[in-house]
Structure formats: structure tokens, C-alpha cells
């Protein structure tokens, strides 16, 4: 997701001109070819996914190319169970990202802005969820939700919307904290003092000075959370109930029995929307940079 975050590192020109030997030139070309092949490898399945959204499958499985049709795109939402699952996924992603963004941003501000005993401990604690395998996160949350616990006020959970939401907030918080932290590390906090010295109240300072400045980082973190939440399968599979099926969980179920081309159509739509959002975010970012006279 670094692409959402144009780096503010000093710009450099491509390094050319110093290569002299023929072997060097061959090597350089070779590396370029390898990079192009790597990009091709990255896009090969995407090509297949988009292509098969135009397939007219014979029978129930959209796995062998038959013939071109626009039918699937004319009826993208005809598989109602799949569409409902996508809507549920989006609802969960919006809510989880909102909560995670607030919690994560507070964490990031605290860690970057203050030097305090225990700071590096908190930092390590934040990294742990990122380095714990998803299967362990899923399994541990399932054991948590099985029975009531004193620390959770003896709340008896029902596997479903709430449990999925809590799980998604959990794995997004650390990502948000890390993203926002990375973005505000270079921020000069004396600006706040300047505002306060000029008579602004602390809350006014926060909303008028601090928040606008760190907003791009927060927005990037929100988008990242959203993408992670919509895409998550493994953890969700463990904590979803029998009647709450998110988009990935539905796909997993369908992949075993029938794969309608609408899966590919919706996947392609998600791809296009995501790329547009990324493009707009990058464009805004670059415009900001230009205004700041950095590039």
C-alpha cells in the first residue's frame, strides 16, 4: 500500500550513463527482463479473472473457457446470496475500519509524540498481531467466543456480525497504528505549541492544526484497513456464524460446488473501484506535494 503514500524521500534521477562494459549492459537488460516477467506473473491470474467474467460456462463451473458473453456483466447481482455476502463484507469493513482508524491513530500519536517509559514495549505489543499467523488469530478468537469470560463482563457471544467485527477491528488496529506512525514520524510537534502560545485551546489546536496535518496518513490507514477487512478469509472463517456469510466465506463455500461467473464480475468491479481510489489518492498526494514545492 506504499503506493498510496508517495514517499517524501528526496527524489533521485534514474541511474544511467555510467554503465560501460557490454556485459554490464547485458546484465542490466537481464534484470529489466526479470522485472517485466515478475510483473507479468503478478498479473497473469488477474487477467484470467477478468477474462472469465466474460465466459459463458457450460454447466455450473466457470473453470474452462467456453465462449464470450456480456450476459454476466448485464446481471452482475443475479446471484443474490453472493451479493448479500458482498454487502455484509462492505458493512463490516466500513465499521471495522472506522473504529480501528480511531484507536490506531491515537496509538500512533501517543507513540510518536511522547517519549515515555514503556513506549518500546507498547511498540512491540503492536507488532505482535501483525506477526501472528492468521490461523492462530482465528483459532484463538474462536476459543474466546465459545464461552463467557469475566474480563469481557461475562458477555456470551453469538458467532456472527459482532464477532466478525471485533476480529476485524483487532487485526486492523495494528496496521493503522503502523501506517499513521510512519507518516507522522517527521512531523514537527512544536507547531502545536506555536498555536497554543498564540492562544488556541488544546482541543482547537488539535482540530485546527494537528488533525489536518496528519489527515493524509489517517486516510491511507483507513483505506488499508478497509482493503484488509474486505479481503480477509481465514480469521473470518473461524468467527463467522452459520448465518453470517461474508464475501470471501461465500466464495469458499461456492468454490466447492458451483462457481458462477458473477464471482469474477464482482471481483473485477472491486478491482476497478480499488484502483480508482488508489489513483485518486495518489493524484491528490502528488498535487499536495507539488503545492508544497517538494517535487
Amino acid at each position, binding site marked *: *500500500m*506504499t*503506493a498510496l503514500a*508517495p*514517499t517524501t*524521500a528526496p527524489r533521485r534521477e*534514474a541511474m544511467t550513463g555510467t554503465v560501460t562494459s557490454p556485459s*554490464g549492459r547485458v546484465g*542490466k537488460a537481464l*534484470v529489466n527482463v526479470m522485472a517485466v516477467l*515478475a510483473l507479468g506473473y*503478478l*498479473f497473469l*491470474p488477474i487477467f484470467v*479473472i477478468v477474462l*472469465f467474467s466474460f465466459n459463458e460456462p457450460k454447466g455450473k463451473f466457470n*473453470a*474452462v473457457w467456453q465462449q464470450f458473453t456480456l450476459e454476466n456483466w448485464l446481471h452482475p447481482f443475479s446471484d443474490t446470496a453472493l451479493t448479500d455476502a458482498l454487502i455484509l463484507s462492505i458493512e463490516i469493513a466500513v465499521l471495522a475500519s472506522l473504529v480501528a482508524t*480511531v484507536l*490506531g491513530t*491515537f*496509538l500512533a*500519536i*501517543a*507513540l*510518536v509524540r*511522547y*517519549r*515515555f517509559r514503556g513506549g*518500546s514495549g507498547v*511498540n*512491540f*505489543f503492536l507488532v*505482535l*498481531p501483525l*506477526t501472528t*499467523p*492468521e*490461523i*492462530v*488469530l482465528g483459532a*484463538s*478468537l474462536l*476459543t*474466546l467466543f465459545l464461552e463467557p469470560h469475566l474480563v469481557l463482563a461475562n458477555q456470551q457471544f453469538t458467532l456472527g456480525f459482532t464477532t466478525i467485527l*471485533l476480529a476485524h*477491528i483487532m487485526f486492523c*488496529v495494528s496496521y493503522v497504528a*503502523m501506517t499513521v506512525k510512519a507518516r507522522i514520524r517527521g512531523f*514537527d*510537534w512544536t507547531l502545536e505549541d506555536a498555536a497554543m502560545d498564540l492562544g488556541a485551546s488544546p482541543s482547537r489546536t488539535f482540530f485546527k492544526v494537528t488533525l489536518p496535518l496528519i489527515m493524509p496518513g489517517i486516510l491511507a490507514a483507513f483505506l488499508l484497513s478497509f*482493503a484488509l477487512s474486505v*479481503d480477509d*478469509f*481465514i480469521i473470518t*472463517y*473461524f468467527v463467522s456464524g452459520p448465518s453470517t456469510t461474508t464475501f470471501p466465506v461465500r*466464495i469458499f463455500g461456492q468454490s466447492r460446488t458451483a462457481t458462477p461467473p458473477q464471482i469474477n464480475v464482482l*471481483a473485477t468491479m472491486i478491482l476497478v473501484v480499488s484502483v480508482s481510489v488508489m489513483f485518486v489518492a*495518489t493524484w491528490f498526494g502528488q498535487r499536495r506535494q507539488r503545492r508544497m514545492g517538494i517535487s
Partner: protein
Amino acid sequence: MADVNERDDQGRKQARASPWLLLAPGVVFLFLFFFFPLFTLFQMSLSYRPSRFEDPVFGWEWSNYSEAFSQYGEQFSRSFVYAGLATLAALAIAYPLAYVIAFRGGRYKNVLLGLVVVPFFTNFLIRTLAWKTIVGDQGWVVDTLRWIGILGENESLLRRPIAVVGGLTYNFLPFMVLPIYVALEKIDPRLVDAARDLYSNTWRAFRKIVFPLSLPGVFAGSLLVFIPAAGDFVNAYYLGSAKTTMIGNVVQNQFLVQVDYPVAAALSFVFMAIVMMIVVVYSKILGTEDIA
């Protein structure tokens, strides 16, 4: 307001109460829904089942651990081998790409980085299913390999270890590209120029200067690929066979099909402990900043 005036060289405040107020909501949440569940998982791993379908009861059942090892040792080692191979493969594919983007990307750097990320806006499962179509017996890849003679007439790619490792490599590749790119991007080009003058050839300059300087990125990327790959069950599920099952498949199957929670919990706990050890060693060597 004494704390306002006490700042370190970065202008950061030294304070007692306010950071903890900001930290509290997030830390409490993570404690309740990350740390505490690990504790309940540990409890589960020491529980026994009074009867087959009742909730397990805690009882210091250490035998779950020995059972986990004796029964699923094979899946254990296989997970680490596959994840290791996938990490190496991802490194081989990602490094040239990150190198070209960082040093030859010019003004297209951001676009190229975007291209690395774009495929991952489609769902993980759909991507893996697409790979199943690509390497399936009716696909052109198998046709070509059979035609060249690498594969026999009745041989497939699907259900073989190579298909699973390939799927793992693909699905976690961006986690390798991005950290390496970040590390390469930090290198001062004047240093490379100087190195080239010194060693007179690009390859040696690369080996002596660029590669060592990019190592933090390589390490971080390796960790970010290795951990999810070792814990994955989707690739082995779609692309593998009974002989390529990984630890994730066992945990998934025991939890969500066989309803044998305690042994599965023991299994996940050991798995997590090993991964955590790797992470701690890494963070001691490199510092947590590079992992995140």
C-alpha cells in the same frame, strides 16, 4: 505545564499521563481481543473433552501437546519447508522487480509500485482459484509442459507440492517487493556511484554495496512472506492433495470439521510459539521499526 517545555531533540514531549490516555483504548482493545484470546487458546490446549460433543474442560492435559507432535509432525515440518521455499522463490522474483523500480523507475516509480499492489485488490481466494484454472489439467501451462516433455502425458501440476509452493509464492509476493523497495530507495545513489568507481563493475558494486544495504528489507520481506505462508491453508486446500497438507489445514480441519479443539489448540500454540521466537530474534537484530 512543565511537560510542554521538556522536549527531546525531535520536539517530542516527555510526559506521564497524556500518552497513556491516548494509548488506553487501543491497548485495552488489543489486550481483550488479541492477548486474552491467546490465553484462552492456551487454556483450550490443556483441556479435555468430557464427551465428544461437549465444550472442553480445562485440566492440564499436556498429552494434547505430545499428541499434536506425534500425529502431525509431518504437516509441521512440511509447513516450514513449503514456507521457506516460497520465501526463497518470492525473494528471487521480488528483488529484481524492486531493484528496477527503485533505481530505474524514474518518474514512474509510484505507478510501478501501484502495479505491484493492484493484483491484490482481488480477493485472495479468487486469485488462488484463478491459479487453479491456470495450472489445471485443461490449462495451457500443462499443455505446454506436456508438449515439451517436462510433464508426462498423464502428469499434472495440480495437487503437487510445486503447485502449493507456487501459490504461496504468488499470494505473498508484494510483502517481499515493498520492504526491499523501501530499503533500496534509502540508499544514496552517490554511494553506488562511488562503489562503481571503486569496484569498476556493476555486479561487484551491487554485491559489495547495494545488496548489503538492502538486507534489512530482505529480512523484513522474508518474515512477512514466511509467516503467512507457513500458516496458510487455502493454497494447500485448492492446489494440493492429501500429501501436501500443512499445519493450517490440520488446525482448520480439527477446529471447523472434526470439532477436536484441544489438540488443534495445542498445535496452533506450538506453531505460534515458534513463529514468535523467530520474530523476537528478528526484532532483536533489526529492531521492530523494520518489521512494520
